[in-house]
C-alpha cells in the first residue's frame, strides 16, 4: 500500500470514528428537544367575531369545483387561499403535527381529514370546539345519518365535507361474479386483486365478510384478519396494496377486482362502463372527511362563514356535481334533479337507506395509541412484506 493511500484510508477511518463519537456525545446530551405529548383536557372553542383578513383552507386534491371559492370570495369579501396539500391522513398528520403540538396551525383556519384522524387530532388537543351558534346553516342542513357519528356524537368539533363508501370496485366484463369481499380470495383471481394501503379501509371490510362486526371487533380480531390478508399476500393472491392508483391497473385489466372508493368508481365508470362499484354483500364502510378548526387558527370567524356557505344547498350542489362523493347536505338532491338527473339518481352519490343498510361507519382498532400502533404495524408489515 503506497504511503499516500494509507494516509487517505486512515483519514477516512478517523472521519468515521469522529462521526460515531459525535453521535454518542449528542445522544448523551439528549433529553430535551424531543416531541412532547399533549391531551385534550383544555380544548378551547374557536371564537367568532367579525371575519377579518384572509382564510386558509387545506383540503384533498380534486375535492372542490372551480367556482365555489371564487363565489365565496365575491359574496363575503374574505380573501381565501385554498390549498390541496392533504394527500394522505397519516402523511398530513406527520407534516402538521410538529406545528400543532406548539399550538400553531401554520396559518390554516380549516383543515379537512377523515373521521378517525379528526378524532386522533382532537384527542391530542390539536382541534378547537365549534360554536354552533355561528354555523346555523350547518345545523339546519346536515343530513340525519351524519349527525351523530361515534367519534364525535354531538358534532362538537367536526363538520362533514363529503362522505363516501369503501367497497368493491370490479371489472364487470372480467370478473362478473365478484359480489363479496370473500370473492377476492377466490384462487380464480389469483394475482388479479388489490387492496388499499389504508388499514381502516381494508381490514374492517375483510373482517365483516368473515362475519365479525367491525365496531365490536377486538384487537385479536384485527390481528387475525391481518393474518388472513398476509397469507393471501404471501401466496400471490393479492397483487399489491395501493392508493388511488388501483383505478389505472383496473382500466388496463391487470386487476379485475379491488377494494376501492365509491367516488373513484363514479369517475372511472364514465370512462369505462365496465368499471363499476359493487356494494359488498356483507356491507360497505362509510366514512366522511371533516372540516376542523385547528388550534391557533387565525380568523375563525371566516372559517365559520365558509362552513355555513358550503352548507347552502345551491352552493353544495356545485361541489357534489363535481366531486361525485356522497353529499352531507340536505336539499342538494332536489336541486340536482333539475340540473343533472344522472347525478341525482346515482346510488353512489345519493345512496338510499336500503343501499347502505349493511354498511358500518369506518372504525379504528380498539385500545390506546400503543395498541393502535401495534395493529397498524402488523398491517404495514403485510403491505411492506
Amino acid at each position: 500500500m503506497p504511503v499516500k493511500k494509507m494516509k487517505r484510508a486512515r483519514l477516512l477511518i478517523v472521519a468515521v470514528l469522529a462521526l460515531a463519537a459525535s453521535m454518542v456525545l449528542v445522544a448523551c446530551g439528549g433529553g430535551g428537544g424531543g416531541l412532547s405529548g399533549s391531551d385534550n383536557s383544555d380544548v378551547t372553542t374557536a371564537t367568532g367575531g367579525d371575519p377579518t383578513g384572509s382564510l386558509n383552507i387545506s383540503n384533498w386534491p380534486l375535492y372542490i369545483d372551480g367556482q365555489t371559492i371564487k363565489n365565496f370570495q365575491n359574496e363575503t369579501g374574505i380573501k381565501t387561499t385554498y390549498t390541496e396539500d392533504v394527500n394522505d391522513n397519516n402523511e398530513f398528520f406527520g407534516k402538521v403535527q410538529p406545528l400543532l403540538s406548539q399550538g400553531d396551525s401554520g396559518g390554516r383556519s380549516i383543515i379537512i381529514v377523515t373521521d378517525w384522524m379528526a378524532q386522533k387530532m382532537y384527542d391530542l388537543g390539536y382541534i378547537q370546539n365549534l360554536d354552533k351558534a355561528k354555523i346555523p346553516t350547518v345545523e339546519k342542513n346536515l343530513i340525519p345519518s351524519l349527525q351523530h357519528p361515534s367519534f364525535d356524537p354531538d358534532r362538537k368539533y367536526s363538520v362533514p365535507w363529503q362522505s363516501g363508501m369503501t367497497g368493491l370496485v370490479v371489472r364487470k366484463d372480467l370478473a362478473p361474479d365478484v359480489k363479496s369481499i370473500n370473492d377476492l380470495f377466490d384462487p380464480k383471481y389469483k394475482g388479479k386483486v388489490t387492496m388499499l394501503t389504508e388499514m381502516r379501509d381494508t381490514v374492517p371490510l375483510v373482517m365483516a365478510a368473515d362475519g365479525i362486526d367491525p365496531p365490536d371487533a377486538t384487537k385479536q380480531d384485527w390481528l387475525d384478519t391481518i393474518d388472513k390478508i398476509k397469507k393471501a399476500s404471501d401466496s400471490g393472491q393479492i397483487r399489491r396494496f395501493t392508493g388511488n392508483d388501483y383505478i389505472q391497473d383496473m382500466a388496463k385489466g391487470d386487476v379485475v377486482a379491488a377494494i376501492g372508493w365509491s367516488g373513484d368508481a363514479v369517475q372511472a365508470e364514465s370512462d369505462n362502463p365496465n368499471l363499476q362499484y359493487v356494494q359488498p354483500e356483507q356491507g360497505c364502510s362509510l366514512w366522511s372527511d371533516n372540516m376542523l378548526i385547528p388550534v391557533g387558527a387565525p380568523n375563525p370567524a371566516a372559517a365559520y362563514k365558509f362552513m355555513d356557505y358550503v352548507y347552502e344547498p345551491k352552493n353544495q350542489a356545485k361541489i357534489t356535481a363535481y366531486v361525485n362523493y356522497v353529499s352531507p347536505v340536505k336539499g342538494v338532491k332536489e336541486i340536482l334533479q333539475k340540473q343533472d338527473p344522472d347525478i341525482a339518481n346515482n346510488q353512489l352519490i345519493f345512496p338510499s337507506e336500503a343501499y347502505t343498510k349493511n354498511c358500518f361507519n369506518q372504525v379504528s382498532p380498539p385500545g390506546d395509541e400503543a395498541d393502535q400502533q401495534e395493529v397498524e404495524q402488523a398491517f404495514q408489515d403485510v403491505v411492506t412484506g
Partner: protein
Amino acid sequence: MTSVRRRLVPYGLLAPGLIWLIVFFVIPMYYMGELSLKTGTIETGYQMSWAFSNYTDAISQYSTQFFRAFYYAGVATVLCLLIGYPLAYAIAFKAGRWKNLMLFAVVAPFFTTYLIRTIAWKTILDDSSPAVSVLKTLHLVPQDGRVLATSAAVIAGLTYNFLPFMVLPLFAALERLDRRLLEAGKDLYASATQTFLKVTLPITMPGIVAGVLLTFIPAAGDYVNATFLGGTNQAMIGNVIQSKYLVVRDYSEAAALSFTLMAIILVALIIYIKFAGTGALMGDEEEAE
C-alpha cells in the same frame, strides 16, 4: 494584511458548503441519532431511554427487506454497468458529431420527474403490453405469468432510473483517455481484448468506481420503484422506513432503521474502496502506472 486575508480565503470558500452541511446534514443527523435511542409515542412524548433494542429489533425484524434492498440495488448496479459501459464507450469513441446529441439523450429523461418516469414503466410492463407479449413468445415469461408487480419489474425500474448516474462518470473517464495509449497497445502487438483489459479498463476504473457508488447508494435506499412496480413481496428497506415514519409513526424505530441502513452502506463503501483503491475514488491514476 494581505497575508492574513490570503490565509482566510480558503475558509471563506469553504464556508457556504460547510454551513450547508452542518445545517442540513449534521444537525438532522444529531436529532435522528437522539430519536433512534428514545421510546414512546406522539401521544405520550418521546423519552430518552438508551433503547438500543430499537436497533436490534430493526435488524432482526427487517433483515428480509434489508437483504432485498441490497440484492435489488446490486443487480441493478451490475446491469447499469453492463449497459452503461458500452454506451459510454460508443459515445466517447464512436459517436463523432453525434456525441453531444447522444449525451443529451442520456440526460433527457431528467427533464421529466422521477415519479412520472417510474409510473410510465407501469404502462411499458403491464400484463397485456407488447413488451410482455414478446417476452412471453420468447418463453422468458410463462404464458400465465406477468412482469409488473414482480422483482424483475422493480430491478428494471431501478436500472432505468439510475442508468444516467452510471453513464456520465464512465463517459467522463473514457473521454479523458489518451488515445495514444491505445495506439501504443496495438503497436506492441496486443489484441483488442488485451488492450481493453490492460489499458482502457484500468484507466477508466475511477469512472467505474464513481458510477457504481452513484448508482448503488441511492438505489439501495429507493422506495419509489418498489411502491409502483413491485407487488406484495417486493418491499425494500426504504418502503419500511417510509411506512414507519409516515404511517405507523414509530419515529424511533424509523430513525434506527435509517441509521442501520447508513451504517451498512458506509461499511460496504469502505470495503469496496479498499478493494478498488482510494486512488480510484479520488480520481488519480496510480493504478495505471
